[in-house]
């Protein structure tokens, strides 16, 4: 119940935030621009709109997840409002989880609004409704949940600016872990290979959540792949949140 109250409060707080609105505005602008850009190509117009819209939804979602995510805990610390909260009968894990769920709810609303707009634009210009791209949107949401969790993790022990940099770096690395794997394969046997493989499995593999191209080309995505990716994302989020709680509980507010 307490978690729920914090989550709803966080949701309301973020929804009123100017940064959130400006980001949503730019994301919508990008959707509009995709229609404009698609006129440059001949044939395959819907592909350009779909690609640009899905990428736009993802990129702006990541920006919201990181920049709003780091502020959730950071702001409370900065404004010293954390003292009021922790003096109440609320456990620290409840506070953190509430904050996380609140932002997840915001991202869910964001992604829903954007998807409706994207589908509307696409239908208006091409008379097509590619339902299968909704699967890509689902995995984008799971990716955003992972990024949000990492932003919260970093903000439990670092300043907002540094947390943003760390979360952004993790997002970039998360998309390039394939290189680590290839490097490990080339290194041959030995300690280095084991270390590289460990780092590869330890870091989030965000490429798992990228099925945009597949759905745009209407290539069927196996149900077990979807199930596995969603489970991977949710399990990773749970791990990050557990780590965040662990750090946050030991933190001394002075």
């Amino acid at each position, binding site marked *: 119940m307490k978690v729920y109250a914090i989550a709803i409060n966080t949701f309301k707080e973020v929804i009123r935030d100017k940064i959130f609105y400006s980001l949503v505005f730019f994301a919508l602008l990008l959707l509009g621009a995709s229609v404009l*850009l698609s006129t*440059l190509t001949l044939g395959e117009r819907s592909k350009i709109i779909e690609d640009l819209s899905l*990428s736009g939804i*993802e990129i702006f979602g990541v920006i919201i997840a990181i920049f709003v995510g780091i502020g959730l805990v950071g702001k409370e610390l900065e404004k010293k409002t954390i003292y009021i909260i922790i003096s109440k009968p609320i456990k620290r894990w409840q506070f953190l989880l509430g904050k996380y769920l609140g932002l997840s709810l915001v991202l869910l609303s964001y992604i829903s609004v954007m998807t409706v707009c994207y589908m509307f634009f696409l239908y208006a210009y091409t008379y097509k409704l590619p339902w299968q791209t909704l699967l890509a949107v689902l995995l984008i949401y799971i990716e955003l949940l992972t990024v949000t969790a990492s932003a919260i993790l970093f903000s439990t022990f670092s300043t907002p600016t540094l947390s943003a940099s760390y979360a952004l770096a993790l997002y970039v690395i998360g*998309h*390039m872990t394939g290189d680590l794997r290839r490097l490990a394969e080339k290194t041959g046997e030995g300690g280095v290979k084991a270390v590289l493989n460990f780092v590869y499995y330890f870091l989030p593999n965000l490429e798992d*959540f990228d099925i945009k191209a597949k759905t*745009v*080309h209407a290539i069927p995505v196996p149900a077990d792949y979807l199930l596995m990716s969603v489970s991977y994302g949710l399990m990773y989020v749970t791990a990050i949140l557990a780590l965040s709680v662990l750090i946050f509980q030991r933190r001394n507010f002075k």
Partner: protein
Amino acid sequence: MRLMSAFLALFLLLDGALLYKVQKNIEGLNAGGARVSELTPVPDGAYLKNISLGQASLLADILWLKAIQVIGGRTISPQKAKWLYSAVDAALTLDPKFWYMSEEGGVFLSAACSQYRFSNRIFRKGFDNNPRNWRLPFYLSTNYFLYLKRYKLAAYYMGRAARLPGRPAFVPLLASRLYAQAGDPRYGLELTEAIYENTRNEKIRKALLERMKQLQVEINLDALGKSINTYKSRFGRYPASVRELLAGGFIKAVPVDQLGGKYIINPVTGEVSNTKLPRRLMIYPKGK
């Protein structure tokens, strides 16, 4: 306060006008020089995919949209053709299922740039990743038949196109005649007409139309060559001009030249050429 606002408004207006002027000057200074973005080699697609942060498909679209600008340009230098090849090649690595790029890019590289090997690589890459698409082997076949004179390969790819779903009824017919009519420019024209009918891009259609006119000239040159040989066997020498052929009744009329050039006969070697077509499109090997 009001005075201040008015002053600021005026300042903004003047500053805006000045910015516009300066930007215009910069554009003027840049004009004339090669546009770097068009000629800068595109990095390898695999490398781009690694750094695309999950946006490989979007990057492919951006490259394709830039490639279309080059296709739409007035002149196509070999440098631009090479750039176009590298852009489409990288885009196909980024988004292998975007077969449309392979089709349009490949046809343009072949019909407008005469870069047949680049064109083939693009078609083959597209076909490897889209093995159910009949157009790609069909285009590959036409490149091998028309320009590269590899008739066995041409027949092989036309045969593959004929077996794929969605192919028009004429493809199997072409496949069956292809080998028998190796090297015949009339057949080449027929193939190009088929590509023309299946291409949507206006710029590429224009290039194909030009190519069809050139092939018509080829057909005329072929027919004139035969008449010249008959002339030689009767008079023991080559005719000096097309008119001589006409006067001797070897041809019914001087062929209409769609390119607007003239047919010239070399009286020493008996070779016939066209002033608007300095290089023959189809080179006929002795052993077909």
